[in-house]
């Protein structure tokens, strides 16, 4: 029994007012021995019964905070709103600040976002696919012309241009309802459903919002728990397929991912009932920053139980979403 336990007990006995007195040490010793003398193992049948009762009250996997994920469009829109507010409050000098880790200013970062939004609208069928200067699947090269075009525009013009594209994409998805969210598209060379694209875009917008905050010296921010839950669910849900790209030998492996904090959760893959061969435990925000390539997997503060190489491959594969 720890000193904390003893202090608790003394408080319950109503004699906690003198526990700092060195003479009370013998009281603590006595209670310590008494407590240990009365420990007794319960019957082995109690654990499965207890786990059944617990998961009946809250199913395994669901976090206590943010269990219900935000919808994909709601998630996307929330980060659009955050970015809009950030952009609207930049002064002339701040627009010219560098947007690390890129070779852009913040104004040019907005140009990049315009290019991405134009591409997204084209993928969703709103307009023709734009001509690109670089490789068709190269996320950054695709927006080179939009970045360069900032030289001839004011930030206010760029912001209006971006908002018009964003609003068109949001309206298009909102009007299409659940059918449109389930549409299959090829995005950045990968097969996706529209809803997953929107969540991947949520990752991107959040990450760029933090890039702006870093540039202007503001504290980093995290999305609301339901939005984080949507992001973490889509990312972790893609791991069994994504890990095959990184290392095909990991096919069919049983693993568990536990993301702690509001908006996290627990996911288990592999044969039902099979013990996980590896478990990754990490903070949900840190994990999402690995996905967004703002934290290197080697720098992630995480606990790994079991097959370390499997977890390293999973962390490498989660970053494909931001490739």
């Amino acid at each position: 029994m720890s000193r904390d336990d003893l202090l608790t007990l003394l408080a319950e006995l109503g004699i906690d007012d003198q526990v700092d007195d060195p003479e009370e040490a013998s009281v603590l010793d006595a209670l310590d021995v008494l407590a240990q003398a009365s420990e007794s193992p319960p019957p082995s049948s109690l654990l499965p019964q207890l786990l059944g009762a617990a998961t009946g009250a809250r199913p395994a996997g669901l976090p206590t905070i943010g269990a219900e994920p935000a919808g994909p469009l709601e998630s996307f829109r929330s980060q659009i709103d955050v970015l809009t507010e950030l952009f609207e409050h930049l002064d002339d000098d701040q627009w010219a600040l560098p947007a690390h880790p890129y070779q852009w200013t913040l104004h040019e970062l907005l140009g990049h976002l315009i290019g991405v939004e134009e591409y997204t609208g084209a993928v969703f069928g709103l307009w023709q696919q734009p001509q690109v200067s670089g490789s068709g699947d190269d996320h950054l090269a695709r927006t080179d012309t939009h970045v360069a075009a900032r030289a001839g525009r004011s930030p206010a013009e760029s912001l209006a241009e971006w908002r018009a594209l964003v609003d068109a994409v949001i309206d298009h998805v909102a009007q299409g309802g659940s059918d449109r969210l389930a549409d299959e598209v090829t995005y950045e060379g990968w097969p996706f459903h529209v809803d997953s694209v929107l969540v991947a875009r949520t990752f991107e917008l959040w990450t760029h919002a933090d890039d702006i905050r870093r540039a202007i010296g503001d504290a980093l921010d995290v999305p609301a728990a339901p939005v984080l839950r949507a992001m973490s669910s889509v990312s972790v849900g893609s791991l069994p397929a994504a890990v095959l790209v990184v290392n095909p030998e990991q096919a069919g492996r049983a693993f568990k991912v536990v993301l702690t904090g509001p908006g996290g959760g627990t996911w288990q893959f592999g044969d039902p009932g099979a013990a996980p061969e590896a478990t990754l435990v990490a903070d949900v925000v840190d994990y999402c920053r690995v996905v967004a390539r703002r934290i290197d997997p080697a720098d992630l503060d995480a606990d790994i139980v079991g097959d370390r190489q499997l977890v390293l491959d999973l962390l490498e594969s989660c970053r494909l979403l931001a490739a």
Partner: protein
Amino acid sequence: MSSAGGHHADGAVWERRMVDRIAAGDDGALADVYDRYSSLVFGLALRVTCDRGVAEDVTQDVFVNLWKRPDRFDAGRGSLRSLLAAMARNRAIDIVRSRSASQRREDNEGHLATVPVMDVVDDVIRRDVSDTVRRALEQLPIDQRDAIALAYFGGHTYREVAQMLGIPEGTAKSRLRIGLQRLGALLHDEGVTA
């Protein structure tokens, strides 16, 4: 990144991580916490209720409540072990009080005979306490021994101890404190340390 099994981590860090994992819906973490603390919880419940079936119910309640409300754990206010012990003690005491009230009602109706509370406590001490502790308890003056037995093994507050022994509350506190001090010294003389 660390490749460590949670059980080997430092106690406070391990407890915090387990609670975070429970909040994230990891029932494996609940099982790990159960493995470490179920003997403490069950032992406390058994000591207070003197009934293995009820002690199992208390143990289940404690761990299911931890699963439902992990936010009740605040590392700044004490250890998880302390919280679970307090939850077990409180739940067990509630059950014993409810049972006592029910029994009193039945007694008033003349259906059941009263079981002297000290007999019950003595029975607990005989069954669940090691010989060394029992010998040390037997060396205490009877008034201190009864107060400790009622408070610690019977799960009663010092106010209830005072009422049950028919003494002022201040006297009950004094007997508990002095009795525990003597008990500590006796156990120390016996070479017993926790």
